[in-house]
């Protein structure tokens, strides 16, 4: 394990202050925070943020980014999530697609996509899960067949967040039949699909919270030109696995609940009574855990910055973080008492209601608890 506490440099602290002031100025006083990475899709916010140089920060300067370190990006992302800022438009493009393009993309792809991502103008969705391929991602059935100048893609993707708003999806699909490839992890490829192309049909999958931001995406013979293949044909599995290590340990895994936690403190502050021991213990326990998990996450960022690939540590942090997030919802509910009213008079009540309905997804998205523990167990018992 590489977990070592890490201090921020004066420059990193200064950046934090800068982002904090910017957000305080731009978000309205009565702003309802999003639940961390569940922040809203707001192209105007993304554009203004990009003007500050805070979208696609780790993209090198030659491709239109800021060439910032992993930890500087960590600091900015942390402040955005802490504020519950509306980050959804650029979230996947900047967290996942840009690093993948840098690692596996062609020079032409980098020159075309990266400046647009950094400008906050090019938004991505993830085309991984399918009706019959969730945790067992290698069983994807979406198929691309060779045609003149490219590929024709047919299949169905599900849980595709904001596919109805975003421009592209990176679609994991089978380019060589399993029988021919020999190994089920072989013969998979990643194609960049234009979500506006002919044959793409996006329809919402309403979730239990009433929101309709995740979708089913049916690909019906969609043409993808050769220049939109990401990385090597047949190497999709290795590429996706590398992506997931980056996806897993970030501040999005412990900050979904900061908004409701902060709102609870507001309620306590407004009450005439001093907080009782039980309430104080709840507030303190959450604070202590968050402070510690944040240090674990920062340690992973620091290690990524030094060129290491802490995949197991990342899985541990995601598991600890998301389990913690769910506990926080129950702890606050217990401390507050009473019925949960989604239209209640305080921000705390409304956010708590939203959290209860959303919390089940936190330990599912980006790898379920069970999958993550499987990865960690393999490493521990090796």
């Amino acid at each position, binding site marked *: *394990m590489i*977990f070592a506490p890490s201090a921020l440099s004066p420059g990193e602290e200064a950046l934090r202050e800068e982002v904090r002031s910017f957000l305080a100025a731009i978000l309205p006083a009565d702003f309802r925070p999003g639940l961390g990475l569940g922040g809203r899709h707001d192209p105007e916010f993304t554009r203004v943020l990009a003007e500050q140089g805070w979208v696609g920060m780790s993209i090198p300067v030659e491709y239109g980014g800021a060439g910032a370190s992993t930890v500087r990006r960590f600091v900015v992302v942390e402040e955005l999530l802490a504020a519950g800022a509306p980050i959804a438009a650029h979230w996947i493009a900047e967290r996942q697609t840009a690093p993948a393009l840098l690692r596996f993309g062609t020079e032409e792809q980098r020159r075309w996509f990266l400046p647009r991502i950094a400008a906050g103008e090019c938004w991505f969705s993830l085309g991984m899960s399918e009706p019959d391929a969730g945790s067992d991602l290698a069983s994807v059935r979406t198929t691309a067949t060779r045609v003149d100048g490219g590929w024709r893609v047919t299949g169905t993707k599900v849980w595709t967040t904001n596919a109805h708003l975003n421009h592209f999806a990176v679609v994991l699909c089978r380019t060589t039949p399993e029988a021919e490839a020999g190994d089920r992890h072989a013969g998979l490829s990643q194609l960049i699909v234009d979500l506006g192309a002919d044959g793409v049909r996006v329809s919402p999958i309403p979730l239990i919270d009433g929101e309709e931001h995740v979708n089913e995406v049916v690909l019906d013979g969609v043409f993808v030109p050769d220049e939109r293949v990401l990385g090597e044909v047949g190497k999709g599995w290795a590429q996706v696995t590398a992506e997931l290590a980056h996806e897993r340990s970030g501040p999005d895994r412990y900050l979904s609940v900061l908004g409701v936690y902060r709102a609870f403190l507001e309620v306590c502050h407004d009450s005439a009574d001093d907080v009782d021991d039980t309430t104080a213990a709840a507030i303190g326990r959450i604070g202590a*855990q968050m402070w510690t998990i944040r240090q674990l996450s920062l340690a992973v960022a620091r290690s990524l910055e030094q060129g290491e690939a802490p995949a197991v540590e990342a899985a541990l942090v995601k598991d600890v973080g998301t389990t913690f997030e769910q506990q926080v919802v129950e702890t606050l509910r217990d401390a507050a008492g009473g019925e949960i009213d989604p239209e209640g008079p305080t921000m705390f009540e409304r956010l708590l209601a939203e959290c209860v309905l959303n919390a089940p997804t936190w330990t599912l998205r980006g790898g379920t608890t069970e999958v993550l523990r499987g990865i960690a*167990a393999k490493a521990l018992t090796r």
Partner: protein
Amino acid sequence: MTVLSDVTAVREAVADVLADRCTPAALEDAERDGWAPGVWDPLHAGGFTTVGVPEDAGGAGGSVAQACAVLEEIGAAAAPVPLAETGLLAGRLLAHAALVLPDGPLTTGVGPVALRHGALVGRLERVAWARRAHRIVLLADDPAGGLVVAVVDPAAASITPGRNLAGEPRDAVDLDGVVPETLAPAPPDAREALARRGALARAALIAGAAHRVRDLTVAYTGERVQFGRPVSRFPAVADHLVRLAEQAEMAAMAARAAAMGAGEHGEPAALDAAAAAAVASEAAGLVAAAAHQATGAMGVTREFALGVLTRRLWSWRDEWGGERAWAIRLGRTLAAGGSDALWPTLSRGVGTSP
């Protein structure tokens, strides 16, 4: 980087000294006798008993982070000696009052003790190794309303032996009428600072023991075969291992971050120490429970090495406060700070970057 490598060097040096000294037989002897000269003497000779106490006070020098690195190794080895008490706790108490350390094992405790006409009134409960300490160092209220550091010869006090779940001495010390050998004014926040160091020291011990519990449990479940394969291959058992490992890392990160926050010469911050204690004490129970479930009946035998560690985890988590008391303190501070200060407080750094 120097801080980290120093910490690593200290850790390795202590591990070297302890290797093969905390044997099952040595630990059984220590439980019976209340003392382990075979463990204390080499640590003392190597200068490891006063890491974290400034050299001009007679200590070995070093930061809180280095002192905690020593304690992690003590915890991992289940070494039955008052290392935390001698260095980080009593040692620093003396140093902060500009007193020089007496030689040998020291201990301390907190309780309602006062100084009246040159003699002490009061009693300290559950003082670690009081019966074997060369001197007891304590804080007492003086008649003028201030606080003094008093150094007491245990022979002058009335000591009732007690122990914790691991058989480590935790004695009651009746101080009524005892005239201290040495008295010196203490800073007004000395009680609070001592409690913080006590909590952080326990967190570091817990972190060390938790890591060792993880290693033992992983090894045992990898060797124990049932239904034709090692039990660690069963997902339900593997789940215990992962949660155990996670909680060990939580305890270690909390303790190390709080220790690092103290810097080269400073003391742990109030919020950091409270957070470390709250996290590590909770982790201790989870680690012990997961380890015992994974190791089955073998784990609860006196013969197996797990018990000396889990009995310590169950003891240390409550000493110097326990998770609920520290969570309450932290929670009151966070609540008083208000919602706007919450995130800036939780995201504050752990000292300056190298």
